């Protein structure tokens, strides 16, 4: 493992939200999208998946293999078993996506991603049906369940905006922000969000893909720094970033642990910095990629913010 390849743990993204919110549509898109990464998608049921039969290379029992390298598995009441099955595959996937059941608390599912050996949690994406979420949130049976799902989100997707008038959308956005004050809110229809936003960027050698040509609403900004960061200041700066920042990912050179690369993850407001591999022969240097909504992120401002957490100003 080299410093560039990250922690070696497979990131897990949990997709939550009530029945009918659009989780499956989102997953169908991820499976069809030419994002170039090999996903293992764990779903409750194949029934609702809409996979082009021509793309299926194998379908055995509870597993479907796709030509693009993705694989789908059913959870069948035993998430741990399904994760072990994925971990036992001859070539490990780049990322695991778990579809939480319509009544699951995604925060609970996320604990598997956080704690299962060989995995790490990327983040929780909760999908909300723009038309019905407020009614559900007052439903006699599922009110608490729905509110819990919203509150668990790192990225909260307001889906089915095509069915909402502008003032409706504004009102529901306002309400969602109250329900999930810690989440970053995104609007979508038919789950039309780029994989990079939902799943994060891939590290791909030296040049990472920008990939947002078709998605004018989003942009990436990437930064390199040769000087070491101060751990506390870095965390403080990033936690103060504006709501337009959806994700960030980076390999960081830290002054208090200079022998090792550190892996920076930001999903919504979920921030983590973990020790990664040793730099070994590589020259320590930090690289951070930020994804945000355009025009709400300002690369120069972000660079300045990061730089102020750096201990040498050699950029």
């Amino acid at each position: 493992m080299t410093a560039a390849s990250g922690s070696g743990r497979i990131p897990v993204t949990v997709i939550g939200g009530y029945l009918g919110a659009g989780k499956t549509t989102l997953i169908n898109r991820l499976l069809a999208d030419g994002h170039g990464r090999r996903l293992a998608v764990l779903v409750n049921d194949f029934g609702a998946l809409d996979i082009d039969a021509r793309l299926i290379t194998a379908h055995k029992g509870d597993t479907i293999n796709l030509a693009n390298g993705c694989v789908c598995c059913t959870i069948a009441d035993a998430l741990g078993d399904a994760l072990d099955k994925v971990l036992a595959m001859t070539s490990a996937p780049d990322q695991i996506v778990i579809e939480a059941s319509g009544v699951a608390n995604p925060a609970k599912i996320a604990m598997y991603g956080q704690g299962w050996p060989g995995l790490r949690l990327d983040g929780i994406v909760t999908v909300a049906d723009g038309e019905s979420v407020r009614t559900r949130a007052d439903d006699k049976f599922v009110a608490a369940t729905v509110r819990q799902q919203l509150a668990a989100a790192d990225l909260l997707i307001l889906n089915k905006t095509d069915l909402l008038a502008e003032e409706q959308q504004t009102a529901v956005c306002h309400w969602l922000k109250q329900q999930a004050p810690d989440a970053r809110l995104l609007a979508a229809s038919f789950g039309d969000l780029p994989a990079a936003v939902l799943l994060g960027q891939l590290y791909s050698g030296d040049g990472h893909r920008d990939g947002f040509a078709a998605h004018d609403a989003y942009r990436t900004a990437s930064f390199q720094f040769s000087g070491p960061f101060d751990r506390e200041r870095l965390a403080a700066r990033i936690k103060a970033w504006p709501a337009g920042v959806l994700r960030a990912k980076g390999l960081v050179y830290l002054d208090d642990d200079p022998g090792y690369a550190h892996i920076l993850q930001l999903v919504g407001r979920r921030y983590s910095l973990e020790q990664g591999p040793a730099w070994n022969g590589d020259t320590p240097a930090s690289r951070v990629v930020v994804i945000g909504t355009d025009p709400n992120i300002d690369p120069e401002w972000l660079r300045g913010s990061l730089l102020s957490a750096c201990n040498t100003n050699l950029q």
Partner: protein
Amino acid sequence: MEKITVYTARAVRTMEPSLPLANAVAVRGDRIIEVGSLESMQPWLQAHPHTIDDRFAEHVIMPGFIDPHLHPSMAALLLPMHFTTALEWKLPWQDVPSTRGHNEFLDRLKEIDQNMEDPDEPLFAWGHHPIWHGEMYRQTLNGISATRPVIVWHRGFHTLVVNDATVEWMGLDEVEGERHPQVNMAEGRFFETGLSLAFRYFNKFTLAPKRFADGLERLRQVVHHGGHTTIGDMAAGMFDLEMEWPALVKALERDDTPFRVQMIPPAMPLGGGKKEGAKLIARTVGLRERNTHRLQFYDHIKLFADGGFYAGLMQLGPPGAIEEHHGEWMTPPETFEDVARTFWNEGFRIHVHCTGDMGVELALDTLEKLQWERPRFNHRFTIEHFGVSTPEQVRRMADLGACASVNIYYVHELGDAYWKNKLGHERASQMSRLGTLARHGVPTAVHTDFTMAPALPLTSAWVAATRITEAGHVMGPEERLTLDQAMRAITNEAAYVLGLEHEIGTIRAGKKADFTILEQDPYEVGAENLREIPIWGTVFEGRPFPIKKLK
């Protein structure tokens, strides 16, 4: 034709209102020919060869006891473990004493450790509860053994604590374990979702074919010792039907197994998602092709509403709980309704796991909708468990023709705890409200959900008729059943809930010759003493099966 055998008895409590008390029952093959007296049955006896068997002359014959809801596979997992419970358990191979107090608990673990022959065999102890035993930590358990894995599992199943030797046995890297938000490696504690991580390593041991088979053999003994002749496996295939089925057949479909098992499979995998009705039906009907003499799938299926009662995951309506409470749904309400409709319209009899009043509400809202769309009589839609409910829901059950199968042990074991920590006295004392069910004429059975409660029907009937808690006081006296109602709840009402009332549940001409033989008469000893009645054994399909006494 086989010879008729006439069993004479001090009393035959038939549970048939038309002839409640008799002193002889004639059996041919697996069927009852006639019940009455030696005099009254003379026409049969003069017409056919017969023998008079007076081995039960001093005993009381009752219909074979029925527990309509327990879990053989869960029992097979648990019974090979060592019981270290605060409440005593009577097991065929051991009377487990009540263990209370921190030091007493540790002494008990040491005693178990010393009595185990294989020094490397992991010691799984089930029954820890901080209220009784204080907190357990990795360090504490290192004091029990430095070399043997020691695993202490919470009474309510949601936490376990392990020692150093266990961590080593698991091969779980300390750092990996510590990453899990519901694992505390320093304390050796795995809880909630962290349990999946622990069982990832334990399953190869706890579910290993030989141990699982041993567990099922123990289950077989437990069921016999309780005096059962019929049980319902109320979530058949709960781990993995393809793994469990051959093991169940091997362990239970034996000539010397004195009971039958009604197999009630879950209607679908849990978790929700879109379900294809036709496939669900075909799969469920297809299960019947496996049937053996004793193990039978039929037209009953199981659905799940809200979460577990011991785990505290029931869905509560207003006013909720004393502390913040998060109930869970095991099935999304919309999926629940879709799947219920699918099976309802195919004429299935539906059993619904409901623990909180909102779980009951979902089941009844659904039933009412289905009755409106496609009315059915005699549908036996059954609310299972029935922890927290309202009186109005009971009346609605009566209106809609629903049945109840109630876990009455909740009152005994959780009554005090839920009074003080969760529900307050009013609602805690009305958990498992059998009295209201009886007042509204709702057909009502009691069950144990074994291993949630001891698989002892007389103990269930005792709690049903007394509502005495583990602390020794009566909770909710108005919700008690009469002695007779309590005895019906483990015989004919339980048969009704399982849809087998034409075959079992009472003693009358034409039914299966399934009897439980008691050494005292429940109607003479009274409700307070029900659980003390010694059981001689059973007669299953005409054949006597005495219970082997210990020592």
